[in-house]
């Protein structure tokens, strides 16, 4: 099984490191796939890429366009948005950097929120992609670690492996 990860474009990774970490390739948001950060007021449109943001109405408006995946940055469930994602086969991206980047109580809270979001998404038949979304080398995780983090959020091992192989690859096609 080949594994893939997606990181921020600020994180530069050589091929040797990505192979050591157990990935066939580590993709970069902004370079390999378009990223529209809706928290930025300047963003007006998004196409065939990933959208991320907090405002659910804005996310839903953009998700009606040509979008492959959504990152909900506050990890809160919005039923309308989730229903639209399920209908249109839009993937929910879960960045595990929310767990590795936080500390103490905020980390515990992030795990709880991600667990709720993941469970709801899977019940709604939405495919979930686990990515590190690392902004630097310090926030990278190997394939083994990414699977364990996905399992911490509530995925079983089979789904965690499917997520970081097929789902992540599918985002790049």
């Amino acid at each position, binding site marked *: 099984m080949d594994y893939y990860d997606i990181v921020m474009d600020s994180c530069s990774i050589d091929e040797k490191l990505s192979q050591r*970490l157990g990935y066939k390739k580590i993709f970069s948001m902004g370079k390999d796939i378009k990223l529209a950060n809706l928290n930025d007021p300047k963003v007006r449109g998004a196409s065939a890429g990933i959208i991320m943001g907090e405002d659910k109405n804005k996310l839903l408006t953009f998700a009606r366009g040509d979008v492959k995946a959504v990152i909900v940055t506050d990890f809160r469930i919005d039923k309308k948005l989730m229903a639209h994602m399920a209908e249109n086969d839009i993937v929910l991206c879960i960045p595990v950097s929310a767990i590795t*980047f936080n500390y103490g109580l905020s*980390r515990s809270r992030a795990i709880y929120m991600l667990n709720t979001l993941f469970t709801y998404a899977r019940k709604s038949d939405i495919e979930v992609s686990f990515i590190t979304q690392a902004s630097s*080398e*310090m*926030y*990278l995780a190997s394939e*083994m*670690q990414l699977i*364990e983090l996905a399992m911490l959020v509530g995925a079983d091992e089979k789904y965690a492996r499917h997520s970081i192989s097929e789902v992540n690859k599918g985002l790049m096609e």
Partner: protein
Amino acid sequence: MMRRKIRYILTESAKPVTESDRPQFEQQLYRAMLHSIGELSYHRTNPKIMKFIDDKRFILRCSLDGYTNALLALSIIKKLDVKEAAFYTLKSSGTIKALLKEPKAK
């Protein structure tokens, strides 16, 4: 006496560890793992650095029961004392010999 099943994890540190810093690094890593895993579960993981392979890679031993905790702890540790740190788990196995075996070329 029943022997606990163990697991060896080949780990890479993002920052190099010089030979003179190793004893201090070891103590700092155990402390950070204790903090991440928690006092009540640390005994189940029982981590120990068995061998440094080079200035970045080392073999960490843990009990099989605490294997998941060890992997998660290594993922979330981002500081050792005051220094920035990060760890990548590259491979795991039941024996050191198997861990150090080079993968066969396909």
